[in-house]
């Protein structure tokens, strides 16, 4: 139960940063060491931005970490969005669909189930717990072959459902909500609502959901990242390029550079990669206080 303590603490981080005043002397050496880490983390992204601004002929034979030739970023973006009748926009829309329905659904299911596990006693609870937590350790890709075969018998392969249905389950999300709900929703409050004659579902939607909000946002964020970055599942399930998410589409463009009838479009691959990263990075930056607390809640057991 103490596991959610870090969550609350890190929400108040600005204050905590001022603790241990005796150690507040800033160390230049330490900052330089972290500078090396920083360069390692950022350099590939800088490389990507710079090279997404070059035309394809200019990519070759120019130094990778500086601009060369005409600044073609906007031209590249235009080309990326219009290439092959705007297939990139189609992929972007598909990704959004998978994220909204898949990650949204996963968050709903995990929230309800985590709340149910935290606040109710019911027959079979222990079994549910053991099985779901055990599932976190099951390698997702180990399920790929049988899931594909089952879905193909049900006629679901090469449809959006083949991506959405497996995305709906997030055992880790369930765990996060469960841990969060134990303390965030006081049992006394539920009792009081019951005394007033409120149904369990009504209590859940009017009272509990609000109290669970910070935990829910965290689960949603991790579900969004997982679906946005999904590659293996679509690779197996989809053969129709118009259903591809961005990850799979980009890989197809990249593969165009090799093999028979090679038609390299490196500038589009680079620009497309950049466009794929930007939305998810923005989501992360805007909601950073939530995921930082969520990581704390999920990782620390005491």
């Amino acid at each position: 139960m103490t596991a959610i303590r870090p969550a609350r603490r890190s929400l108040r981080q600005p204050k905590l940063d001022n603790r241990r005043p005796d150690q507040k002397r800033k160390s230049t050496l330490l900052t330089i060491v972290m500078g090396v880490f920083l360069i390692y983390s950022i350099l590939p992204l800088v490389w990507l931005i710079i090279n997404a601004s070059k035309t394809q002929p200019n990519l070759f034979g120019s130094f990778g970490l500086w601009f060369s030739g005409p600044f073609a970023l906007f031209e590249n973006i235009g080309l990326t969005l219009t290439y092959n009748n705007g297939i990139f926009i189609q992929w972007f829309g598909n990704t959004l669909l998978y994220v909204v329905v898949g990650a949204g659904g996963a968050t709903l299911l995990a929230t309800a189930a985590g709340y149910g596990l935290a606040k109710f006693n019911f027959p079979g609870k222990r079994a549910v717990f053991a099985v779901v937590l055990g599932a976190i350790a099951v390698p997702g890709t180990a399920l790929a072959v049988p899931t594909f075969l089952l879905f193909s018998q049900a006629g679901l392969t090469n449809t959006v459902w083949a991506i959405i249905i497996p995305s709906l389950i997030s055992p880790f999300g369930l765990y996060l909500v469960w841990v969060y709900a134990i303390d965030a929703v006081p049992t006394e409050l539920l009792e009081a609502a019951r005394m007033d004659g409120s149904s369990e579902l009504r209590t859940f939607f009017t009272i509990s959901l609000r109290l669970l909000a910070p935990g829910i946002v965290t689960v949603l964020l991790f579900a969004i990242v997982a679906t946005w970055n999904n590659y293996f599942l679509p690779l197996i399930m989809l053969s129709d390029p118009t259903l591809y998410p961005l990850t799979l589409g980009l890989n197809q463009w990249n593969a165009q550079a090799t093999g028979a009838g090679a038609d390299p479009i490196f500038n589009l691959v680079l620009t497309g990669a950049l466009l794929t990263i930007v939305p998810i990075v923005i989501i992360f930056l805007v909601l950073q206080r939530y995921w930082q607390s969520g990581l704390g809640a999920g990782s620390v057991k005491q």
Partner: protein
Amino acid sequence: MSVALSTGQPTALSSKPTKKNWTGWIFVGPFIAVFVVVFIVPVAYSIYLSFYRDQLIGGNAFVGLANYQQALGDEKFWAALWRVALFFVVQVPVMLVLALVAALALDSARLHASSFFRIALFLPYAVPGVVAAMMWGFIYGDRFGLVGNINDLFGSTVLEPYAQQWLLASIGNINTWEFMGYNMLIFYAALRVIPLDIYEAAELDGAGAFRVITSIKLPALRPAIVVATIFSVIGSFQLFNEPNILRPLIPSSISTSFTPNMYAYNLSFQGQQYNYAATIAIIMGVLTAVIAYAVQLRGSRKDDR
């Protein structure tokens, strides 16, 4: 993960439940229904598949453990398994030590602009694995990659990320880049919950910064390290995206059975050998669970430090 977290379980299960009836199923039911479809049924089906084989004569026939026997004698499978094991033994410690150093630096309160570093180092986690692999794939290349630039600069081939002996290291670098910041934040979150009075007591005892790290911070990080290691076991043994995306660039070095996962994938989707692919997947699943459990046991023993 599951094992690491299970110590919180007994207290939680007895956390003053309010009702002893079926009401809870209203909330848990929908999750469980989908869970059965996408987890339980596929696992069961996978086990079923592994005991059968499509034969030229007699069609689909029960063959007992023959598929498992075949896997145990399969050189391709063993080579792939050793490759990911080596990957795990080398890449994971490097990544976790780097993450640990970064987390300790963040927590030291002696860093300029520490919240900027925290965000910036975590950023690669948000980059899709496919994009990360493609980006590094280009950077490694000599056509318009950084490595090509560096080699031109020295007029030689000092760096050969795609050479057979460096290939695994090159893939390890991509994974380290992606997940170092994520692990750093897990460690950092664990460091933030160390009570302040412990530091005050240590200071009274005259403990220096190094002593504080070895005697207070590292022991407190133990559960977080266990969790991070378990996640890394799962990640290493499932290695697929990076080698599969680099493969078109260097098909001669990365075979279709480079990792167990690639082997299983290619067996089913190129070779239609679903039964054998399911067998490989089950062996890898069991192996992952066993190692994760061993890490957890080793990590939770309090007296061996």
